[in-house]
Every structure is written in structure tokens, then in C-alpha cells.
């Protein structure tokens, strides 16, 4: 009888991928070296908007070491980069890999130089002479549609890409009659994702086989392959292999199909040598899809008792110069459908206008739409509390949706899975000792110190996504995930997952899942991801979907393995398969653990089927595709304490406390880590980060100018959890990758406004709340 196997799922197991990273043996795209590689350097527009009169590449072609120079005119037969989410009446302008009629943002590529060395390519690129006809440009979100602004695309008059709405306008109008209505203008500024590894690609065309291999920094190699091969280059998918090896962070920015990898994949077929491009950080600022960038007018109505009775939202969302891969989804279905928050909200109406500007395309950045929704709601709730002179915790509590275990229909399309919102708020208030924090704040204020306490609640829709639902809303893809389990004859297991890890630690958590389900040691399990040549068609990692969607696909395959194994074991034991069960790494007759066949013996039998059930296929390998029936909805409540320096406007975060509910947790250490990182990014948006355009020029175009959070700008975080499993998937996991980013921004801003309340300040329109912005607000308040 086998010993009871220790459960590993749900434990803080140290990461299996770490040994290679801490010894410098990871393999990121730029680390891949191929003989004969050439290097690509792009010639980019220095202008925000300019017609291209002429591109003179003669000097570059003569430059020593140059292999080829290409412009858009050379790329015949190549199509526009596609948009993967089509809203009704969406204006879809062409987005050619190399712009040839006009450049529409600073950084728009117009030519590529390919040379024997990086230096030669760079030197030659500097000699490419472009004759520009500079046009007026518009970069500000709220200026895009005004009459005097230049039109960027022929297909989009007034630069409007789409007008979209959701909810019940008449119900909101009715609700607002006689209510206390607070109104705010809220700017959710543009951000740059800035994963530490810049984007890179290496494309190799094999003349002998006609196969193209692309190593690329991708969160979803199959999406890259499908979009690039089938839509842009017209190459059969089966002749293209996309490999995303170790990837150094993504945060959304590595989901999308970009110009550069498309051009390198096209060019390698021309020059018949490998072509490599590695982004500089400055190029990353100019070309990685940006995030957020909303300007919103919001109104929230309250009853005298402090119940929310309606929300009206009018948002302009800046999409940048072209439609990035999933851009239209972000400010619509990933944003406005979340405006119900965790509150009972009788009436909601949201109106969103997506606009083109002469800026880097905007798409999903960690949270993607959901942080914008949470920020808006939590600022409006605070404004309501201020107007009604109610405690912010009490007002929130009064409005929370009561606990439910299986479904809550919101006013904006979504059906929440399970929730216990009051429990997280209660736990948060107890954890931080809210009453004492308020007493400490009062004492600090007595001393003239500007100490503030900020709260927020949030909800996230993740586990993206039910294919039918997203298809009806405009998605041009399904959003299931795949998981293949291959059991080897000697009992080892290789898992091929469509999920992609770029920091999430799937090699550990998925191994835990396999080891737990099969009762075998984790060392017997290998996880393969990121290679379309190895894994089944998969949709990749974003939207906090890997555990819930990828994990469930994997679980389904594991259960199929066990079902087949039962038949083999039953045959060996001369028992009925129906009488078999699987426990502690062996197939056994129910209730008779002594009559058992170990997993390894079943595996061997499957591949050496001498004594084998009649009609059963040999082998032990199963593939599953899991399409979730609904999104999952993690939630939580966060708080922080800040102090504002009266003289400088500098904000110091003194404490940050988070209570999250992400459903069941597969590895607490990893979940906590993601929460920490998410908080840092959310605090970054609140206090320091912001992409700033001036006259179409990106003035925050390097790490010197764009303030990323550093270690000494942040505190250690105090984190806790409640656990409300989701009924949507058998693992009960909801998703944890984005929660911190969603919650932290409103939490910190609310705290700063609370700190400034004694000065009569109740709102600052635009983040980040940099010292300058806070200082100016204080100066204005003095007058």
C-alpha cells in the first residue's frame, strides 16, 4: 500500500525556474545566437505627423556591412497589421508595418536597415534621408475631436474611431432627480508598461525547408503566429514556428503583434539570413503599446442615506495613432462593464468615444480598463462621502453587494461569479486597525501634519474569457486555453501548456497541479510553454487567465489520463474500471488500497501493451481545450496611509495594506509576489508615472524622464486574503495577476486627497500626484 502522498497544491513551493535566473542562465530572446545573423535597425519618424515625400536609402546601401535596406514600397503583398477586436462601425485605418504615405507618431517606422553588425546597421540607418512634409499634430485626448485638430486617418473623420455605450441612460436621468449628485472630471493618464526586458525578435528562414522560425518576446506565441502569418505576411501557419523563450515581463505590452517582428520575419526571407532586432529602451518608450489615457466626466448620485442610486460616465479614450491588436476592447468591454464595481448600483450609463491621436498606439496594460473603472468609482465614492459628510468606510459598506455564492447580475452585462465583499472590507479595517489609524491621523493633524488615509474596493473580470461571449462583443479570436499531458513510459510527465510564463512562475504552479492531481513528485513533471512547435494551439497569458483557464485545461487532461489509466489498471487487476479509484499515486480497487497498480506501471503498460484491454489505444497522452463558461471576478479592499510634505508636495507612503480575494490559491508565495508587484505599479501611476506629450513629442521618452518606482519610494506591503472560490472552474481559482495594479491607484490618490482635505482640497484632476502637482494644488488652495 502506497504511503499517503503529501499535497503540494496550495503550498508556497519555491520556484523551479529560479535556479536558471539567479545564475544568469535564463534564455531571453536577445540571448539566442545564430550563426550568420544580421541586425536590423529601424529608421523612425522624428515627427508626430508628417507626410513622407521621399526616402533616400542610397547612402545607407553603400555603407560597409549593409546587407539590405527596405522601405514600405519594398513590402509588396504585405497587409496591414490587424485589429483583433471589432466594435460596430469601428473605423479601422490601415496600419502598414513600414509607413509609406505618412508617419503618424514619433517612432513610426519608415525604413529598416539590415547589416552584418548592430553598429553598421545603426551607422547606416543614420544616413537614410527622409524628406518630410510636416503636418499639424494632436496628442491630447480631449483635443482629438475638436474641429481645429488635424485629421489623422482618411477613414476617421474628427479622429473618432468608435462611439460606444452601455447601460440605461433614461434610468440614470430618472434616478438623478432629487438626488445628491457629485460630478468630477477624472483624467487617467497615459502609462508605459516598461517590462524590464525590452522587446526583441530573431527571425530565421530556412531555405531548405521553407520554414520560418521567429523567436519573439511574446505573451502569446500562437496569437503572434496566427496574426502575423495568416493576416499580414500571407505565409501558411504550418510553415511558421514562434518561440517565446524566457520573457522578461510583459504587463500586456508583449501581447500585441508589432511592426518590428513582422518586418524581421518578412526580411529574413529576402536576405536569406537570420535577422535580429532588440529594442533599445528609448525605442520601447516610442513603440511599445501604451496604457490607460482616459479623460472622463463622471457623475454619481446618492440618496440622503448614502446609497448610490446612479452613475453617469462620459469617457474619451485615446487609442493613439493606429489600432493596436486589442485596443478597442480595453476602454469598452474591459472598462465600462466593470463600472458596477462591488456596489449595488440601480442605474448606470457609460458613453465612450475612442479617438485617434498622433501618439503611440494604446492597448492593454496590466489591468486594462479595469483599473480605469475602479479608479473612477473609488474617486466618485469618496466624493460622495465628502458631500454627504459620511465616513468613507461606512459609505462603502452601506453600498456593498451582499454575499453571494453563484451569480450576481450587474447593470452592465456582467454576471459576477461569487463574492463576499463585506468580508474583505471588514478584514482590511481590522487588519489595519482603521479606528486607531483615524485617531493617529487626528493627532497628526493636531500637529499640523498632512496625514491621509485612503481606502478602495475593487472588482476585476479575469479568467479571460468565454469565447462565445467575447465573440458576440467583437473579439476576432476564441479565448479558451489548451493543455496537453504526455506521460512517458517510465512515468515522467511533460505538460505542454498554451499559457505563457513571463514571470508568473507556471513551471512551478502547473507542476504543483500535476503532482497534486497524480500524487507524483514534482521532480517527475516538466512544463513546456512558449513554443508553437511544441505546444497545442493556445491563447497565452494576460488578463489573469493562466491559473483559471490554462490550469483548468491542464486539469481536464490529467483527469482524462486518470480515466484511461483506470481501464489499464483494471485490466491488470482483473477488476472492472468502474470499481477503480486513483489515490496516492496508484490506481486501486475502491476501498482496497492493497489491490493497486502504481502510476508508473500503468504508464509503462500503456506503451508496452502486451497485457492490455481489448480495443484500447496504446499510449498515455491527452489534450484538452477549456473554454470558460464565464469570467472570474476577484475582489478586495486596500488601504494606505500617506503623509504629504507641506513645503514640497512630496507624498510618502507610510503603510500599504491589501486584503484580496482571488479564490483558491495554488501557491501563496507566488500570489503574494504578484500582489506586491501590482501594488507597486498602481502606486507608480498614482504618484510618479505618466507619459507626457508636448506638441506630439514624447517628452517622457526614457527612464530618466519617466519615473518608475524604485525600492526606496515604496514601503513593505501588509497583505492578507479571504478565500471565496469561484464556481466557474473546478480549481476554484479566480486570478491574481492584476489585482494590486487595479486597487493601488485609487487607494493612494484617495489617501493623498484625504491628507489635503484640511486645506480644502477635495480633488486633483490628473495623476500622477507628483510633488509639483500636489504643491500647486496646495498653493491654489491657499488663495
Amino acid at each position: 500500500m502506497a504511503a499517503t502522498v503529501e499535497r503540494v497544491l496550495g503550498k508556497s513551493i519555491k520556484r523551479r525556474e529560479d535556479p536558471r535566473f539567479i545564475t544568469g542562465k535564463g534564455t531571453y530572446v536577445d540571448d539566442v545566437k545564430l550563426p550568420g545573423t544580421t541586425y536590423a535597425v529601424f529608421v523612425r519618424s522624428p515627427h508626430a505627423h508628417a507626410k513622407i515625400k521621399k526616402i533616400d536609402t542610397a547612402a545607407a546601401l553603400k555603407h560597409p556591412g549593409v546587407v539590405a535596406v527596405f522601405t514600405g514600397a519594398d513590402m509588396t503583398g504585405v497587409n496591414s497589421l490587424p485589429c483583433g477586436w471589432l466594435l460596430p462601425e469601428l473605423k479601422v485605418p490601415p496600419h502598414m508595418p513600414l509607413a509609406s504615405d505618412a508617419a503618424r507618431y514619433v517612432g513610426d517606422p519608415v525604413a529598416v536597415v539590415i547589416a552584418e553588425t548592430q553598429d553598421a546597421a545603426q551607422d547606416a540607418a543614420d544616413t537614410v534621408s527622409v524628406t518630410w512634409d510636416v503636418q499639424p499634430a494632436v496628442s491630447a485626448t480631449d483635443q482629438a475631436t475638436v474641429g481645429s485638430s488635424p485629421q489623422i486617418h482618411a477613414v476617421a473623420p474628427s479622429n473618432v474611431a468608435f462611439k460606444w455605450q452601455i447601460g440605461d441612460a433614461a434610468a440614470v436621468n430618472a434616478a438623478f432627480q432629487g438626488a445628491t449628485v457629485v460630478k468630477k472630471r477624472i483624467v487617467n493618464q497615459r502609462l508605459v508598461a516598461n517590462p524590464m526586458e525590452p522587446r526583441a525578435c530573431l527571425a530565421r528562414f530556412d531555405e531548405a525547408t521553407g520554414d520560418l522560425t521567429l523567436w519573439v518576446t511574446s505573451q502569446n506565441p500562437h496569437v503572434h503566429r496566427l496574426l502575423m502569418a495568416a493576416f499580414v505576411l500571407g505565409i501558411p501557419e504550418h510553415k511558421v514556428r514562434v518561440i517565446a523563450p524566457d520573457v522578461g515581463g510583459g504587463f500586456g505590452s508583449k501581447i500585441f503583434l508589432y511592426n518590428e517582428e513582422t518586418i524581421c520575419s518578412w526580411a529574413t526571407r529576402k536576405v536569406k539570413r537570420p535577422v535580429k532586432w532588440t529594442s533599445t529602451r528609448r525605442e520601447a518608450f516610442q513603440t511599445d503599446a501604451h496604457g490607460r489615457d482616459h479623460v472622463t466626466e463622471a457623475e454619481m448620485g446618492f440618496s440622503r442615506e448614502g446609497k448610490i442610486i446612479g452613475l453617469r460616465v462620459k469617457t474619451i479614450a485615446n487609442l493613439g495613432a493606429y489600432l493596436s491588436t486589442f485596443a478597442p476592447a480595453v476602454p469598452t468591454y474591459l472598462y465600462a462593464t466593470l463600472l458596477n464595481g462591488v456596489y449595488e448600483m440601480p442605474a448606470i450609463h457609460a458613453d465612450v468615444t475612442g479617438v485617434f491621436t498622433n501618439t503611440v498606439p494604446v492597448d492593454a496594460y496590466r489591468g486594462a480598463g479595469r483599473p480605469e473603472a475602479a479608479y473612477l468609482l473609488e474617486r466618485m465614492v469618496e466624493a460622495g462621502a465628502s458631500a454627504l459628510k459620511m465616513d468613507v468606510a461606512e459609505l462603502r459598506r452601506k453600498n456593498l453587494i451582499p454575499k453571494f455564492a453563484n451569480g450576481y447580475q450587474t447593470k452592465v452585462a456582467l454576471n459576477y461569479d461569487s463574492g463576499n465583499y463585506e468580508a474583505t472590507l471588514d478584514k482590511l479595517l481590522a487588519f489595519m486597525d482603521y479606528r486607531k489609524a483615524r485617531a493617529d491621523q487626528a493627532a497628526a493633524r493636531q500637529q499640523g501634519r498632512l496625514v491621509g488615509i485612503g481606502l478602495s474596493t475593487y472588482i476585476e473580470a479575469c479568467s479571460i474569457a468565454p469565447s462565445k461571449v467575447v465573440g458576440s462583443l467583437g473579439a476576432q479570436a476564441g479565448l479558451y486555453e489548451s493543455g496537453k499531458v504526455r506521460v512517458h513510459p517510465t512515468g515522467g510527465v511533460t505538460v505542454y501548456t498554451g499559457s505563457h510564463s513571463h514571470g508568473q512562475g507556471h513551471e512551478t504552479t502547473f507542476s504543483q497541479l500535476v503532482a497534486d492531481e497524480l500524487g507524483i513528485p514534482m521532480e517527475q513533471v516538466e512544463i513546456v510553454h512558449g513554443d508553437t512547435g511544441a505546444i497545442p494551439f493556445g491563447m497565452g497569458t494576460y488578463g489573469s487567465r493562466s491559473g483559471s483557464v490554462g490550469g483548468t485545461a491542464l486539469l481536464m487532461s490529467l483527469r482524462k489520463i486518470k480515466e484511461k489509466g483506470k481501464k489499464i489498471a483494471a485490466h491488470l487487476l482483473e477488476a472492472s474500471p468502474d470499481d477503480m479509484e486513483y489515490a496516492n499515486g496508484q490506481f486501486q480497487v475502491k476501498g482496497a488500497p492493497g489491490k493497486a497498480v502504481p502510476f508508473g506501471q500503468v504508464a509503462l503498460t500503456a506503451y508496452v501493451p502486451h497485457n492490455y484491454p481489448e480495443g484500447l489505444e496504446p499510449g498515455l497522452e491527452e489534450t484538452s481545450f477549456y473554454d470558460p463558461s464565464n469570467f472570474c471576478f476577484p475582489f478586495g479592499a486596500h488601504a494606505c496611509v500617506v503623509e504629504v510634505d507641506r513645503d514640497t508636495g512630496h507624498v510618502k507612503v507610510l503603510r500599504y495594506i491589501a486584503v484580496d480575494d482571488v479564490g483558491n490559491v495554488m501557491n501563496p508565495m507566488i500570489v503574494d509576489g504578484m500582489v506586491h508587484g501590482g501594488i507597486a505599479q498602481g502606486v507608480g501611476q498614482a504618484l510618479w508615472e505618466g507619459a507626457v506629450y508636448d506638441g506630439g513629442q514624447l517628452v517622457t521618452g526614457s527612464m530618466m524622464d519617466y519615473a518608475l518606482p524604485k525600492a526606496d519610494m515604496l514601503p513593505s506591503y501588509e497583505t492578507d486574503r479571504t478565500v471565496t472560490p469561484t464556481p466557474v472552474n473546478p480549481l476554484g481559482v479566480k486570478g491574481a495577476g492584476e489585482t494590486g495594479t487595479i486597487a493601488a491607484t485609487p487607494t493612494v490618490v484617495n489617501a493623498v486627497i484625504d491628507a489635503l482635505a484640511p486645506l480644502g482640497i477635495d480633488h486633483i484632476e490628473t495623476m500622477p500626484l507628483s510633488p509639483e502637482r500636489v504643491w500647486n494644488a496646495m498653493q491654489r488652495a491657499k488663495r
Partner: protein
Amino acid sequence: MKLPVKTTINGQAHSHEVEPRLLLVHYIRETVGLTGTHVGCDTSQCGACTILMNGQAVKSCTLFAVQADGATMTTIEGLAKNGELHPIQQGFWEKHGLQCGFCTPGMILAAHQMLERYPNPSEEQIRHQLEGNLCRCTGYHNIVKAIQWAAENMAGKK
């Protein structure tokens, strides 16, 4: 015109002719072939390229290869000895001080110098000393814990 550069990296002697403009980080990554040292920016902000040069933590993107002529260097590949992880490497593993792993080599080598200067650093000191290294994944929380773990374990070994 190429110039001669002789270096010792992780105990191994190297001799190359390089272009004067070649950055030390590209020399390490491309010429010598040690790709554990990373390039995360072009303005000396991120610290992913941090190595030890003559015992000092330096950003190898901020030196030319020719400036390292005659230098003895340690990169992340050279930190573990005889297959045994350095306590700082171990600390990053134990305390989940990394996620995507890209900033990690630089973080570990910056921590190496930090702990030579401050064998028993406070949290505030650790955070201040990491001023030259950016991480986008961890929010720094577990990096601080990793370095504290290393400090405790290195003290125990002395």
C-alpha cells in the same frame, strides 16, 4: 581601428580586439558570450547590467570595453562556487525575490557590494542602496527580504 582588451572574467582570461565604442556590457554579452548580464535601458537607470569590476559593482553599460582593459570582473555566471549558490542567490530563491528574472543578475550583484559595505543593513539601507536598480515585477518587497536573508546567512557563516 580596433584596440586590444585583456580581461579576466569569472577567473578566465580573455583577449580580444574591439572597437573603441563597444560598451562593456556588449563586450560581455556578445564578444565573451556571457548573456546573464542584461541590458534593460540606455540611460544607466535600470542596473540590469550590473557586474563586479575589481570588486566594485558597476553598470557595465556605462563603461567602454577598453576601459576594462586589465580588469578582473565577476558576472552573475561567476558568483556560484563549485556548484554552490552564493547566499545572495540563495536568498533570492528562498524569498521569491524575482519573477521574470531579468533584473535579477544586476540586483544580486548590487546586493553583493551592499552587503560588503553594510553586512547588517536595515530595511531603509537596503532600499536606499538599491537606488540604481529597477524591478518591475516584485514591487521590491521580496527583494528586500531576499537581501535580509542573505545578510543573516552570511553573518552566520563568518
